[in-house]
């Protein structure tokens, strides 16, 4: 049985539907992420799981028990708020002791567990400080420690790293992964940062407009997006209008206006169908002269523009009649920020199964 079972949950505000029939089941010990653009209903869904809001229809069960009828303070679910919501009038230790006090844990045990918890988040020497005397990263860790100290069944995290700078964010990601592995508490993590979602999660639910667009492992989400929205939202992607002209088992042929025919993996489309070919820039080979390999689509084009990104350079290559394809090359050679300049003639090539045909 899944730890948390959500079925057809709907939440409307007036005539606006913030969460529109969401279903998902989350397993014990999972690091589950809700990913989606601003306003897609992530926080609303999370608040319903925490109990601060309730759905107009649908079901939520924790360990098979109905959750909706239980008030938030009775749910074995804790939240790490985006603003951390640390109590400013309590020391770090008092903040962490708070949930234990609410559960009437004996004083001696509270003391022990708070000090263990402070060790876990490497704040043993900060127990007597007040939240306003801590750095952003430290506050973040206090919020985590406080939410985890009495081992909830489920921890909800609403963009917990959004307020931190990039370096700290990367470091905290690693800490989060380790912490979650160590204590085995199930995490539901909300973010609109796709890198964060991809690095942290066991599974990701990509949301848009109150609906789940795709629910899968990170690599599936990235490599086999189910539709145009997911493909465009996660990473960068070439999205080209295409029509199926031949489909045969594993392979099919697509007609792309201005470019011609390309081979692609057949997801079970039928001839005549139109859709989008999604092609990741890093899956495209780029060179001055490429020898075509077996099962490759091969085009000759011209560099229109390039974006230097430090580790890689993205080249925008014009192929066929005005079709633009992005491809990237790592800047592995020292002192050479780019290999091609605008106007250079180049070859691009990709295996037929490098992209996905999306008819959604």
């Amino acid at each position: 049985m899944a730890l948390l079972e959500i079925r057809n949950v709907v939440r409307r505000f007036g005539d606006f539907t913030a969460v529109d029939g969401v279903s998902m089941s989350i397993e014990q010990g999972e690091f589950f992420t809700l990913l989606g653009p601003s306003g897609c209903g992530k926080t609303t869904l999370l608040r319903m799981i925490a109990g601060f809001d309730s759905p107009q229809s649908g079901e939520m069960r924790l360990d098979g028990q109905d959750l909706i009828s239980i008030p938030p303070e009775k749910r074995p679910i804790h939240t790490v708020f985006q603003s951390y919501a640390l109590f400013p009038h309590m020391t770090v230790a008092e903040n962490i002791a708070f949930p234990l006090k609410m559960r009437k844990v004996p004083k001696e045990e509270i003391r022990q567990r708070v000090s263990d918890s402070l060790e876990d988040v490497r704040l043993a020497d900060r127990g007597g400080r007040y939240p306003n005397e801590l750095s952003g990263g430290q506050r973040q860790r206090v919020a985590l420690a406080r939410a985890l100290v009495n081992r909830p069944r489920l921890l909800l995290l609403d963009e917990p790293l959004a307020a931190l700078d990039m370096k700290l964010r990367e470091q905290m990601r690693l800490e989060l992964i380790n912490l979650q592995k160590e204590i085995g508490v199930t995490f539901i993590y909300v973010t609109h940062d796709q890198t964060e979602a991809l690095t942290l999660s066991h599974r990701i639910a990509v949301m848009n407009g109150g609906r789940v667009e795709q629910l899968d492992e990170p690599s599936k989400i990235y490599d086999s997006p189910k539709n145009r929205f997911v493909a465009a939202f996660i990473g960068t992607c070439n999205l080209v209008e295409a029509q199926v002209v031949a489909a045969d088992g594993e392979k099919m042929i697509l007609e792309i206006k201005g470019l011609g025919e390309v081979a692609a993996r057949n997801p079970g489309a039928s001839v005549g169908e139109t859709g989008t070919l999604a092609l990741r820039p890093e899956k495209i080979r780029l060179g001055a002269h490429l020898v075509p390999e077996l099962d490759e689509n091969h085009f000759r084009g011209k560099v229109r523009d390039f974006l230097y990104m430090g580790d890689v350079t993205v080249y925008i290559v014009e192929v066929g009649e005005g079709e633009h394809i992005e491809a990237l090359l790592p800047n592995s050679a020292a002192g050479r920020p780019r290999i091609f300049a605008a106007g250079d003639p180049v070859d691009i090539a990709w295996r037929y199964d490098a992209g996905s045909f999306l008819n959604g």
Partner: protein
Amino acid sequence: MGKNLGKWLISGPPVLYLVVFFVIPTLIMVLASFRYPGEYGGLAPIMRHDASGAHINLTLESYQEYFSDFIYSWLFLKTLAYAVITTFFCLVMAYPLALLIAKSARKYRDLLVLLVILPFWSNFLIRIYAWMIILGPQSVFSQLLNGFLGLFGIDPVRLLFTPFAVVVCLIYVQLPFMVLPLYANLEKHDPALLDAAQDLGANGWQRFWRVTFPLSLPGIYAGIALVFIPVLGIFAVPDILGGTRGIMIGNLIKQEFLEARDWPFGSALSIVLTVSAMIIVGLAALAARRRVGRDV
């Protein structure tokens, strides 16, 4: 250098104002409390000339008088008691009101605050006289109360010209001064803190006592100071509603200046009052500092 000059130019006028209208008068009053009363009121000259030459004409007599008769200290303690009772009831009544306003929808808040300060728009004395009517023996309130007491065979009580009338009116007059600082504090509370507390297992009662209340302590202290201190010196309310049993130290001070024409004794009473108030408030602030820890 130029920066300092600017600072002085900006803060100069208010500092000057305070010196001229607060510091100097206070010093004059301190001095007055050590002088002899003049023969026809006012103050006797500081220098006295007689056969043996000039003497400085200062005395501790006024203070001696204060401490020689317990009635003054008793009046002072009674005033303190009125102030404590008034402050207590203001706090108990203002807190839920301030909380209600702070929690109501943003668009209604200003209106509700306006209603709280609405009484300020009418004259202070008129508002006190209104209580004479409310508490008078012929008032609906008195009649209902006495009718009710009569059912149990209790003799009718008089409300007007009693300490009760004074305290009720003091509470009425001072209530907005408690509501406003409390509201200003409560309105700033981050609602996420209450969500967090609830999320971590706190029920409504615990959320109030462990989050809302401790965070509102600065507002409570401000409200207490704003209610308590003015009540110590007030004389209009007991003058109008208190009769003889309801008088406060403020009445006595006023009397010394205007009727008895003993300025030195009036000044000494004022100084005792001011110093006591400062000590009380200082001790309270010290205790408060230790409790609040830190803000935000």
